[in-house]
């Protein structure tokens, strides 16, 4: 039984890692970033490229992926999203366009494939990343042997969640972000540079997605289209947990992960995913504000 719960926890931690970034960009800024899944994808490809070109392993890839995706997220916010604040549904569409562009950029190797140049590690095919030997095998916790890599993912999730919480609740920038979540106009009136903070928030959320991508690369094949289903899961977690609530996102990621794990053990993966979708639809119908939304005015 413990091993099943552990699998659920590990699924939940991946969900959380993906949705942390969304909890900030969607939950706080209200931007539906359909390109979030592509940030995960880029994070995974960063790991591949690090391995092939720098000879670096997964650990080194974590900070690099964070910086790369954060920079891309920053650029997206500056060039596109910024012009669409207040047009929520339009950001969804524009970022969908960006998502396609990013997918094709990877698939066409940034257009280099037209000139007959092949970048090792990019292109339309599948990529794989070797898990460092340190993380292979199992660790014993009490009487139960747990998969090391999955344990590592849970650990990384814990650390990033904690870091996000501290930044959000214990730093001056975090205070400004929370002020913007409550009321952007009032925040602006109080002298907060809403545009600057929004760019940083968006970059940070994208960076978190990049880290999720690195973690994902350890147990999934990497391909240009991998991001879309991941982003969908992330949205469901954030919506079910309640917009603007970090703890809600944590709870709902854990809950959906466990549901997924339990049902998958009892039946199969397809049904498990379907049940998760069903649960989220029910939650939205019964509690449109999400399970753990904060009480704002």
């Amino acid at each position, binding site marked *: 039984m413990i091993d099943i719960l552990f699998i659920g926890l590990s699924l939940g931690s991946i969900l959380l890692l993906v949705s942390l970034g969304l909890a900030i960009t969607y939950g706080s800024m209200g931007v539906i970033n359909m390109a979030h899944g592509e940030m995960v994808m880029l994070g995974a490809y960063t790991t591949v490229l690090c391995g092939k070109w720098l000879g670096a392993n997964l650990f080194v890839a974590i900070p690099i992926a964070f910086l790369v995706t954060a920079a891309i997220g920053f650029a997206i916010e500056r060039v596109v999203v910024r012009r669409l604040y207040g047009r929520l*549904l*339009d950001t969804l*569409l524009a970022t969908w*366009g960006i998502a396609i562009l990013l997918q094709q950029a990877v698939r066409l190797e940034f257009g280099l494939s037209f000139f007959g140049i092949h970048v090792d590690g990019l292109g339309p095919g599948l990529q794989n990343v070797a898990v460092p030997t340190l993380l292979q095998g199992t660790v014993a916790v009490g009487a139960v042997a747990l998969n090391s890599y999955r344990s590592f993912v849970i650990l990384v999730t814990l650390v990033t969640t904690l870091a996000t919480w501290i930044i959000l609740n214990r730093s001056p920038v975090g205070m400004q972000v929370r002020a913007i979540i409550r009321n952007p106009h009032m925040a602006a009136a109080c002298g907060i540079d809403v545009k600057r903070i929004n760019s940083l928030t968006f970059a940070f959320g994208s960076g978190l997605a990049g880290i999720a991508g690195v973690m994902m690369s350890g147990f999934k094949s990497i391909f240009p289209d991998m991001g879309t289903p991941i982003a969908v899961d992330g949205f469901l977690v954030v919506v079910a947990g309640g917009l603007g609530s970090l703890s809600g996102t944590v709870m709902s990621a854990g809950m959906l992960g466990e549901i997924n794990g339990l049902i998958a053990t009892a039946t199969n993966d397809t049904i498990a995913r*379907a049940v998760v979708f069903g649960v*989220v*639809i029910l939650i*939205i119908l019964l509690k449109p504000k999400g399970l753990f939304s904060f009480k704002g005015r």
Partner: protein
Amino acid sequence: MLFKNHYEPLAYAIFIAAILAAPLVLDEFWLNRFSKYLVFGMLGSAVALSWGYAGILNLGQGLFFGAGAYMLAMSLKLASPTSLQQGSSTPVPDFMLWNAEPGAPTQLCCIVKGSALWLPFQSQWFGVAMGLAVPVVLATVLGSVVFAKRISGTFVSIITLALVLLVRLLIIDAQPLTNGFNGLTDLGSFHIGDFTFDPYGLESYYLIAGLLSLVLVGTRLLISTRAGLILQATRDDEVRARYLGFNVPHYKTFFFVISAAICGVAGMLYVLVSEFASPTFMDLSFSITMVVWAAVGGRASILGACIGAILINMIEAKISETKALVEVWKAIIGLIFVLVVLFLPRGLGGLAHDLCRGLWRRRVSGTSPVGKTGTISHPAA
């Protein structure tokens, strides 16, 4: 006033005349392709109705399209020669034989678990009726629950998105009943009496072109009715419409259902010309692609969204003939999409509207560009 300007009915007339005359210049292959694009045009219009006029961004239109497609495809599957020649008194789809347990009776009633559901589909008209009924019932239930709870905006998009993916997974999982990932292929043809509709024939084309014209004109007239105006009022300010005493959920649900019904019809027509139904109809990307068509064509323009869908698909077909450009085309679509959302939020329809207004030098009062909530307050041609 039904039409605010003279050129709008003219635009509809020209478009309908054009699609009716198109077979004069199209060969058999292109006729079949073009029929599909007309079906996509219908989908574009359905999106424009629910998104542009009701303010409901449905990311699950594929659910209704797929439901319509599957219902008719089930009937046509039973009518295919292979299903009829399985050596039993009832037609049996080939994939059921592959999925049946050894020793199961080769009868549609009991070959695999649940296959009795297929029994009524031996009548083609039952398939057609269900192709319309299933989307309508789904949309009625979904709409009345969602809108009565005053769920709106992005939450509706997320619910519809989750729902279409949920149904897609169920269909894939029910492999013995639905042939899972592979979908329903090798279908018989649709017939009325003794007349058989050839997917490459002129009759199929005119069936689709006729229904599309009907949908276009019907929808355009519908949004000019009192109910249509109330709907637009609801879209622009739901709270105010409610305070004025209108039953907002009823109006929203009604138009949501109409949009779903159009998608259901489109699904059936698509099966008619493409001769297959598959879970890809319920992919997230297909549903969003429909929104792309409507956005490029003009979300607040029934005709514009239709033309947008047809144009995008025609260009895509032309470009995809060169192998190297297939992937580039996707990137171009992504780029076009970003640019349209940023700089042309009312799409080609809005652009045409402005151009015509400039030409005629008529002052139409009350045009406002994109409002605060991301909706458009003035419908274009």
